[in-house]
């Protein structure tokens, strides 16, 4: 039977949990979960193991705020030929992130940008003719238009998009490698609970769309849900002055 490996970075968040639920894991598969809290990881391992009792589940506690080779502790099992990687990690703090000062500058950049770059680099080390690696990097619609809040967060996500596009271009002819940047629309999560957001998506629906895109879409930049594609176009046309009002 075909063996598949799945890695989810930022696994304990709402979207990470929904991706785990939506993956059709079989008994030979391996699931590697990475997050910053060991107790949450233990809970998630327990919950995932109940649903998939024969699947091998490994957990790694990595605090992505610090960039001292954040993924050194993860070892890819070599006998798994197919890997799907979901980089769901993200963090923002609107109160501490404007043009004047960002007290959490390092943390925002590390979690939202640098850690992802490190991880993709780590994956590339394992790339060979007998292994397929597909990576989904979760971005944000914050990149669609510059704003006065979440400044560094937006920069980090935009830089990440640029990095993903560069990697995709560099490895365009490699049929064993795929990387995708998801421009993620508003989601109902505990982080944005109570915020006046429109067109919000449940994490389960978003997870299904992300998995489907990684498995079937050839695009490097994918909008989830799809209609953010149209909204992105409109946002480009509308002058910033109007939006700021």
């Amino acid at each position, binding site marked *: 039977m075909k063996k598949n490996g799945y890695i989810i970075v930022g696994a304990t968040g709402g979207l990470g949990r929904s991706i785990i639920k939506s993956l059709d894991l079989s008994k030979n598969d391996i699931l590697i979960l990475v997050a910053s809290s060991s107790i949450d990881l233990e*809970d998630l391992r*327990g919950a995932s193991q109940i649903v998939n009792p024969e699947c091998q589940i490994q957990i790694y506690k990595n605090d992505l705020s610090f960039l001292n080779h954040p993924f050194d502790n993860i070892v890819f099992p070599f006998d798994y030929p197919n890997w799907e990687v979901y980089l769901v990690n993200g963090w923002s703090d609107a109160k501490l992130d404007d043009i004047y000062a960002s007290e959490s500058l390092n943390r925002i950049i590390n979690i939202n940008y640098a850690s992802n770059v490190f991880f993709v680099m780590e994956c590339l080390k394992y790339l060979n003719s007998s292994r397929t690696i597909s990576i989904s990097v979760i971005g944000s619609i914050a990149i669609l238009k510059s704003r006065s809040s979440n400044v560094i967060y937006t920069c980090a996500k935009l830089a990440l998009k640029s990095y993903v596009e560069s990697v995709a271009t560099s490895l365009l002819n490699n049929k064993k490698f795929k990387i995708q940047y998801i421009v993620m629309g508003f989601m109902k999560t*505990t982080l944005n*609970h109570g915020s006046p957001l429109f067109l919000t998506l449940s994490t389960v629906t978003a997870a299904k769309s992300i998995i489907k895109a990684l498995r079937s879409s050839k695009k490097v930049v994918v909008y989830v849900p799809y209609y953010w594609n149209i909204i992105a176009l409109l946002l480009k046309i509308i002058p910033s002055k109007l939006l700021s009002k």
Partner: protein
Amino acid sequence: MNKFLSFDLTTEIKCWRKEVDRRSTLKKINYSDGFTIKGSGLSYVGSFIPPIHKGKVIDYSPANLIINFDETNRTVTVLTGITLGDLFNFLACKGLYLPVQPGHPDISIGGCIASCVHGKNQFKDGTFRSYVKELELFHPKYGYIYCDSKTNSDIFELTIGGYGSTGIITKATLFTKLISSNAYKTDVIDIKTIDLIIPTMLKLLKKPNCDYVYGVLDLNRSKTIKSFLLSSTEEAGVMNNFDLSTQIIKKKFFSRSRPIYKCLYTKMTSSLAFIYLFYNSKKTKISLFENLFPAAKNMTYYKLFGSSGFIEKQLIIPLVKFDEFLDCLWQLIKLSKIAIPLCTIKIFKKTPYAGLLRFDFDGVCITIDTEKTDESTKFFKKLDQMALRFSSHTCLYKYSLSSRSLVNQEYGEEFLKFKKKLSLFDSNNIFKSSFTDKIF
């Protein structure tokens, strides 16, 4: 800001809510202003509602994972935001269930522990305390506390039935029971004279296949009290046509909002509802799910109370004093001229875990529902005083008119013991709600 409304519609407040879907988040919150803990938000008296306007609430309902299942010992470990319905879905597929369940599948496990709830057959199954093996509590002063009947036993006992005042119940391991049958038969037994109701109930409860028995009383008539018994018995063997998979919950049942119409219950419609229930419940075959969660199908009953909401008082009267109490109650209802849409009785048996503020005593448990009006408030105040003469104990988590003095008079030394233990554990009283603020 969110508007929170208690299930009985008597308490309403605007507050700030923080959703928490994992245990580690709890450590990152600043608790200096005090917090109220919310599970599903279906508490009758609004145990999840903060004591002050714009108070802060930790909503733990998104933390709803089943994190361990021990097939050998038949225990399940969950994050306590999980609902009874979701847990039922999981356990039923393994041939197991939780015997003590309040009637609604959307109630969270955390809520069941915090209130130490009882099910339809307390006489046979005890209270929720009997099914809690161990739990984990989070309190900002102590961090995560593991407790069971041996380790930190004082905190364990204080938390089960502590109305969320000891901290956030993050994780719990529960004992489960084997499903012996997945189909039940409900029967209606007409009671000719009211004095026969308790002996008949006791007789039925002794039958091995009896799941529960409760009496339904019509107290709205002026000449006599009409009553019948509703019993549920297990059908022999496992019924193929009652496949468990058909009982899986398809959607969330109900969201509480205030209706715009007035109460539709009068003395006459209440009596008609009694007759309807009598004829409609005769020899019905129901599934385990319907047997455990009758309220899921009967939410209309609560909605018909209209915009003013309702008051429910549930109290235990010692067996020997019940007949006299019932007579006094009936006289009181006749004098106050209020309609009682539903009055039920059950037999309770004190468990080894009784004590503190748990609703766990020997006697007859009587439940009275009315529309919330000035008249009914006066009625309940009179009933409180009258019931004290019969050594009554009120179920605190259902009665919105509970007061410190009532709890003091009814629970006496156990109440003082609870308060003393709580102040030793948390002198700052970080976790409080409008409900605990009123009674502690």
